[in-house]
């Protein structure tokens, strides 16, 4: 079982991705949806790392760095949009009320 670590890591990545997808689909709080997206990005990064470990290639960690920068930019822009929504007088963070955006 010692050589099966990449397979188990892929299994863990599947579980994490499904959990994050469920969070995005089921939760309506914008902050929690952003956190679920972070979970999904982490699952993708874990899949890359596992593949890199399986084939002894450093490209997996290179792609991890790309995902890391993507996640940082996504969190910054998403949280700025949440702050903007809140500052516009919206009392709740419910994503269902986002259909009244304008401008």
């Amino acid at each position, binding site marked *: 079982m010692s050589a099966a670590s990449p397979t188990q890591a892929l299994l863990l990545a599947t579980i994490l991705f499904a959990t994050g997808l469920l969070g995005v689909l089921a939760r309506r709080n914008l902050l929690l949806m952003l956190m679920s997206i972070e979970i999904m990005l982490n699952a993708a990064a874990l899949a890359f790392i596992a593949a890199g470990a399986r084939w002894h290639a450093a490209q997996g960690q290179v792609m991890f760095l*790309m995902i890391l920068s993507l996640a940082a930019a996504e969190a910054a822009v998403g949280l700025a949009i949440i702050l903007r929504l809140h500052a516009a007088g919206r009392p709740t*963070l419910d994503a269902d009320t986002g259909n009244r955006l304008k401008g």
Partner: protein
Amino acid sequence: MSDLPFILFSLVAACAAIMVITRAVPVHALLYLVVLLLSLAGVFQALGAPFAAMLEIIIYAGAVIVLFVFVVMMLNLGRTDRDRERHWMAPGIWIGPAILACLLLAALCITLRALPPTAGPDTLVPIGPQAVGIMLYGPYVLSVELASFLLLTGLVSAFHIGSNIRGTGTATEEA
């Protein structure tokens, strides 16, 4: 059982992920998200990627989570959100889908276990920061530039979105 730390990290990560998406209060979900990221760093270390593990701790569990905590502190979330989320997360609704999803997961585990082991290295050799750096600044230097473009775009758009928050607030109050 040299795999024991890996299995422990994986179990903690899966449980923490489920706890993140079922919390009603965002701060509690953030605490579980930190646990999830730290355990994922442990998984990376066990997979032979120490550089990725350290970056996971420094950037994810450090910078991104601090950003989230900052926004949670700035927003003064009311009780209506929490009650509505609790209403959505009534356990009676979720029992059936959860059982079916667990069955699917068990089937996936059995399928993965039944696969013949592919020819590959028997032991995991760690890939250190030196190999990653050589790869990053050798054939992948263009993607490093693209990542810097992406970060610059994120910086500019976050600055633009958040630039005149005060102005919109007063405009909404006046309207």
